[in-house]
């Protein structure tokens, strides 16, 4: 096997193992209430961290990213369909770049 194939498989292994171990080992484990709450809150903490400040550099310039993000946030606040929120964000960036 050439070394690039080995590299890809090694990258795959170090990606897969941290995904797999908690999934398999923690499913039925009884945990203290604090840890349960911690695990319950992880999604909201992770999503907050994933959105910001990464979103600012997602379109190449901060202003258009803010415009797109604002459109998405507004549509999401109105609880429109998720696909509309996504398309609205894209349209917001596109409109900003065309108009500004």
């Amino acid at each position: 096997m050439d070394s690039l194939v080995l590299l890809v498989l090694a990258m795959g292994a170090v990606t897969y193992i941290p995904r797999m171990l908690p999934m398999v080992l923690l499913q039925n484990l009884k945990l203290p209430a604090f840890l349960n709450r911690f695990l319950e809150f992880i999604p909201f903490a992770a999503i907050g961290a994933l959105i910001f400040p990464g979103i600012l550099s997602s379109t190449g310039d901060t202003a258009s990213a803010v415009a797109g993000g604002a459109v998405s946030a507004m549509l999401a606040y109105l609880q429109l369909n998720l696909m509309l929120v996504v398309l609205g964000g894209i349209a917001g960036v596109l409109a900003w770049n065309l108009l500004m």
Partner: protein
Amino acid sequence: MRNGTSETNITALQKASSTVQERLTFANGAAAGVPVAVGYLPIAVTFGLLAKSSGVPDYITIMMSFFIFAGASQFVGVNLLALGAAHWEIVFTTFIINLRHFLMTASLTRRVEEGTAKKWLALLSFGVTDETFTVASLRRERELSPAFLLGLNLIAFSAWNAGTWAGIFLGSGLPEAIQTSMGIALYAMFIGLLVPSMKKSRPVLVISLLAVGIHSFLQWFPLFEGLSAGWGIIITTILAAAAGAVIFPGGGKA
């Protein structure tokens, strides 16, 4: 008296069973994954293009999307390869970037139907990305069936691989203006999933804003300049979720 109690019990049971969710299906999962797939396509096309222009052999690029299935680390991997970095260094960087999934699957597995076989869990965990995790975690249903997760992960995985192939073999992406604008797609999806939950639950609002604050601080405060993106997200997630667990002893519904 005894009769009365049992009647109340029956009504309570009926109420409970009528509000109990239908078991989520494979098709529910695939449908929930459509926005993820739409967001993945242009990124995967870009990845295919970038890898090709960096001189990575096509079969290696294809294998990356198939065996790694993690966007950020694949981009970094190709960049490091092009820079001539040592292979152990690329593997180590990949590990750090994707270590955050450790926290995500630790959280997600508590929502998977009880009694799901370990081999199923092991298979499903391969498809957990920031995006599929987010979509699954923010479902209103408390219990997630393996079929649902399979549908969700499979459509995301298919889009990622199809996009990679398209980038390599079609050799051109979308028009520049569209491509740039689509950079926001997955962020918009995160916003679309998070905001309704923020409206409904004060703990969610507080914890996600806290995470935004902590992550911004880590990114912009000069002291933490050397901190890699992978660690930034891990530290932020742990701090914000732990703070939430301290502040809200009643859990997410408070």
